[in-house]
């Protein structure tokens, strides 16, 4: 035996091939390769996860502390904030609130797009661009099993990453932001909704799969990255357009508010107002947009509102996640069919 060969390495495959069919190498082999290939991705995700988690814990601690101080000093209620002393005590809450609403939420909103562009699109595009797909096809392992391992490692990493980020974001939002003081952050807002609950997880998995498919079809890394980014953004637009219809809206007719404030009949707190307007004397409805530029609403008899109350958040997210995960499954079927040939 050559002295260059480590004895354990040289003899290692023997017991494995004895237990299994010799033609099918164990997943361990493929797992090793995909872990090695995804090393940079895994480290990046782990580092980002630590940074985001530390950020969120810091936000939670600062807000909890400030709220504790406000409660002990009787400065918790907004009516007391005109007092200079209370205002000073309240001010430490602004920074974590700003950080959460203006930095973390937009960042988490962008996470799926970044995952699709930087993890999904290059995954197969690079294999085709560099010709290494032919190297893989020349090995004993079947291309379908190779693809399964190639997708499973980054897929699980993205699932763990987005799942942890989403839970931490939702937890801080629920305990400290939406019920807390000093921040206005209703759940259906543009940068709030995609950073809550199931949305980051479903969108991340969808964007990853979409990137993989685009990479398989385009076979060039850079064009695949650009196209994936554009498609994820377009999909975001489409889903956002369809989101109000994921659950029937609450349709409410209320008494007219006083003349001074116009048609300001208000939806419940944190609800998503879809449309509102005036009910005219003949029973017909006019949108508030029309009222602004005409006097037709002057003889309105009542106001009407269409909105999603806050407890529609979870059902709407479930419908949205269902759509995205079904699309993800379809994409995966197409990718696996494409690799077999």
């Amino acid at each position, binding site marked *: 035996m*050559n002295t260059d060969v480590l004895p354990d390495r040289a003899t290692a495959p023997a017991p494995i091939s004895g237990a299994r069919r010799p*033609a099918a*190498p164990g997943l361990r082999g493929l797992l*090793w390769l995909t872990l*090695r290939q995804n090393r940079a991705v895994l480290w990046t995700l782990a580092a980002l996860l630590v940074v985001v988690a530390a950020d969120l814990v810091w936000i939670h601690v600062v807000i909890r502390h400030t709220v504790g101080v406000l409660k002990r000093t009787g400065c918790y209620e907004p009516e007391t904030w005109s007092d200079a002393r209370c205002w000073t005590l309240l001010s430490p809450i602004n920074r974590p609130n700003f950080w959460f609403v203006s930095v973390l939420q937009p960042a988490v909103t962008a996470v799926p797009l970044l995952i699709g562009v930087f993890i999904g699109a290059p995954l197969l595009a690079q294999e085709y661009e*560099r010709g290494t797909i032919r*190297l893989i096809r*020349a090995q004993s392992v079947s291309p379908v099993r190779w693809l399964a391992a190639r997708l499973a490692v980054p897929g699980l990493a993205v699932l763990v990453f987005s799942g942890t980020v989403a839970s931490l974001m939702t937890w801080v939002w629920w305990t400290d932001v939406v019920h807390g003081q000093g921040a206005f952050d209703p759940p259906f807002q543009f940068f709030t909704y995609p950073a809550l609950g199931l949305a980051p997880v479903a969108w991340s998995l969808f964007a990853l799969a979409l990137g993989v498919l685009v990479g398989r079809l385009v076979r060039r890394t850079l064009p695949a990255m650009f196209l994936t980014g554009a498609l994820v953004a377009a999909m975001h637009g489409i889903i956002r357009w369809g989101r109000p219809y994921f659950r029937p809206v609450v349709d409410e007719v209320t008494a007219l508010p006083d003349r001074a404030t116009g048609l300001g009949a208000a939806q419940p707190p944190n609800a998503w107002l879809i449309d509102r307007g005036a009910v005219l004397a003949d029973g017909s409805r006019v949108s508030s947009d029309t009222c602004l530029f005409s006097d037709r609403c002057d003889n309105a008899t009542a106001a009407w509102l269409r909105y999603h109350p806050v407890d529609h958040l979870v059902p709407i997210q479930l419908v949205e996640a269902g759509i995205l995960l079904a699309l993800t499954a379809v994409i995966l079927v197409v990718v696996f069919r494409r690799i077999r*040939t």
Partner: protein
Amino acid sequence: MDDPTTMTPALEAVGLGRRYRGGWALRGCDFTVPTGRICGVVGPNGAGKSTLLALAARQLTPTEGELRVFGEAAGSPGQRARVAYVAQDKPLYPGLTVTETLRMGRELNPGWDQEAAQRVVDQGELRPKARIGSLSGGQRTRVSLALALGKVPDLLLLDEPMADLDPLARHQLMGTLMSAAAERGTTIVVSSHILPELDGVIDHVLLVQRGGIRLAGDLDEVLDGHRLLTGPAEDAELPADLVVERRVGGRQATALVRTAEPLEGRWEPDGRWESERPSLEELLLGYLRAPADPRPGTTPADDHHTDHEAAA
């Protein structure tokens, strides 16, 4: 090697054809490569050599006909383990080191022979920790060949393997390949347009020209079936259907003729003609220089065609 494999030919093409978007790269190919042979696939650039090897490696699927590998018409898990393939562009993961690349070979191939692969790498004095991306073309070729040999295949398909190697490395690696073939009875199919590279090495030949097989068979039989005639230019009346190629230089005429059918009775070289057995190079150059009858529906495809992925 067990008996059934020696009975089935390593490669058997029946009406094999492959079309790319641009046209047919190969069409109407029928040939057999018996097990245990070292078969040279020769022909001009763009003749279809790479396509032929990619079809045998199951990187491509035939558009028509079939190419049986050890009797199997399509790829199977068992076959994948028996066939090794080194593509012309030697694809490897640039981010992996030499050691990691060999580890990949070990992890993905059940019958891996680390010693054989390591020997090829060590011969080239490659740093084990060098990244593939930092290696020269010749060094990458060496790693690719190590991967193929470590797989311990029954059929080794090499597409222009030696093109970017220096003469010493070429000689070394040819020696390694030949000893592997001799020890294990590996069938080797090697394409090349560097003819001296194959001389004295191959014992079977496939001449690919314009997407078709011009000549196929045992090298000795093929060479015995031809004569290289040299004689006076003015007396160059030879039976046209037997002449492969004929050149007149000054007062001398040289002709390559097929003698598979006996010449006797049709035409007898008299004393002024010198007749000798052609060398491999003379034979192939004769065929390559002679215009082949264009095959209907066949267009010369680019040999460096990178569209190796099978169409859906």
